[in-house]
């Protein structure tokens, strides 16, 4: 089967697969018309590629110290200079992307399904389940995010894993709220009533009919949240509660370099810019996705 533009855009698809891919392709075409979102997407892909290819792109070993060459200015040997232990900032930035972006992905993988499940069940079941699940959500929402994460990490052992768990713990409630609000709106619709009248059970209705409709707004929310997850991860790193030295995590890199921020400004600037660019890119992409995936639109 040859995948062509016409095959994707036909008004009369001949198979399930063609219909599904056609819809995805239309969404892609729509997203492509938004230059800012495309810029965001490209930056994110570039950042991921750079992180994945770190071993080949790095000019130095990120852990090797060269105390004779501390806090060197950017030069041909060290493109972005060296830090307080003489480590190459450029190489550390590449490897740091693996940790920072990896944490973000791990958080999202944990948080989105959890929030979706809690929200959909609460919204569809209603009654006592709704009240119970939503009060739990409220409890988590009521804590300041960073403080709760801090307390959680402090209770465990500081490190990447506990940082991810801590951020996930504080990040899921908004998703649950969002999914619940969407579900409440969908619960009363005729098409869900029609599925009920087919004889489908509640599990099937939530999983197969309601959750897929909550997904788009959740995806949008996730991309918009990415930046704040990056910042929380960086903040935990900055406070020494995230990735532990000598791991090159962006937030931790800024934290250790903050003493030199005035004299050797290039040391904290590089990871700072990386965080800024990544956050901005995710936000731009999120905005674009919102326009495309908005469930209120026909397509």
């Amino acid at each position, binding site marked *: 089967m040859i995948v062509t533009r016409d095959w994707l855009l036909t*008004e*009369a*698809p*001949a*198979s*399930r697969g*063609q*219909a599904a891919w056609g*819809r995805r392709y239309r969404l892609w075409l729509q997203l492509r018309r938004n230059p800012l979102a495309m810029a965001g997407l490209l930056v994110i892909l570039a950042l991921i590629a750079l992180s994945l290819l770190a071993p080949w792109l790095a000019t130095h070993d990120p852990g090797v110290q060269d105390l004779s060459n501390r806090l060197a200015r950017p030069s041909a040997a060290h493109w972005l200079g060296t830090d307080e232990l003489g480590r190459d900032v450029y190489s550390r930035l590449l490897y740091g992307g693996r940790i920072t972006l990896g944490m973000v992905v791990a958080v999202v993988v944990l948080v989105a399904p959890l929030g979706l499940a809690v929200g959909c069940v609460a919204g569809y079941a209603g009654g006592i389940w709704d009240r119970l699940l939503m009060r739990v959500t409220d409890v988590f929402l009521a804590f300041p995010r960073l403080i709760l994460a801090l307390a959680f990490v402090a209770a465990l052992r500081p490190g990447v894993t506990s940082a991810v768990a801590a951020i996930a713990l504080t990040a899921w409630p908004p998703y649950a709220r969002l999914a619940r609000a969407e579900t409440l709106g969908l619960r009363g*619709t*005729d*098409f869900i*009533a*029609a*599925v*009920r*009248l*087919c*004889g*489908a059970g509640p599990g*099937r209705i939530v999983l197969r*009919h309601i959750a*897929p*409709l909550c997904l788009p707004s959740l995806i949008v929310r996730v991309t918009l949240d990415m930046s704040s997850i990056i910042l929380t991860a960086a903040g935990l790193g900055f406070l020494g509660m995230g990735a532990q030295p000598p791991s090159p995590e962006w937030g931790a890199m800024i934290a250790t370099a903050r003493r030199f921020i005035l004299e050797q400004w290039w040391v904290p600037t590089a990871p700072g810019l990386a965080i800024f660019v990544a956050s901005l890119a995710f936000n731009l992409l999120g905005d674009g996705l919102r326009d495309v995936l908005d*469930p209120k639109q*026909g*397509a």
Partner: protein
Amino acid sequence: MIDIEGLRVRFGVNEVVHGVSLAVLRGGSFGLVGESGSGKSTILRAYSGLNPEWTGAMRLNGAELGRRRDRAFFRRVQMVFQDPYGSLHPRQTVDRALNEPLIVHGLGDRDARIARALSDVSLPGNVRFRYPHQLSGGQRQRVAIARSLMAEPDVLLLDEPTSALDVSVQAEVLNLLRDLQERRGLTYLLVSHNLAVVAHLCSTIGVMQGGDLVETLSANDLRAGRVRHPHTAELRALTVELEKDEAQPATAG
């Protein structure tokens, strides 16, 4: 086939249906007319099991219906909704919508059944993998009717099936519903605010007002004006007045 006795439905403190009784024979069709808020749709939703807050007695083919309906009930009774834009899942193709009842009831031979269902409602085969937003209102309502017929029910509950459609499409859908009833021996319980639509499709008509079934009469009696209740007379007069204009050209008021 359908027996409803002393049905009362309440939403919170408001009772919206005050003890309605009606019966529809197998293969018959009963139409409920009334204005919005008269409780006609509420009766339909209570019978379908969508609204469990009722008292009284409802029977399907002599068997008492409880608060909760089992899967077997949904094989025998299906519903078509008013708004074809709202009754189809926006992210699911026609194929997926028609598959759902087959999967739920574990029916085999799905491809053939779907193809037959589409041809039964006179839809071309190429709509099968389209999404609802790629279909016209009339096509959507045909899909909704096809979906309701997938599990081969005996009873179809029709909630204003044509009021969201253009009149030319309404005619097509009404013809389709009539054909299907003849071919499959379906029993219809139809709700509509349009007297002419109800009289066209149903032999017996119940007039609702403020939660009461104020009059039950045959379509012929309604056409001939043999009505007893003033509300029936009022509704009839409004319809007849508009029809008169085109029949005999006179200066309109």
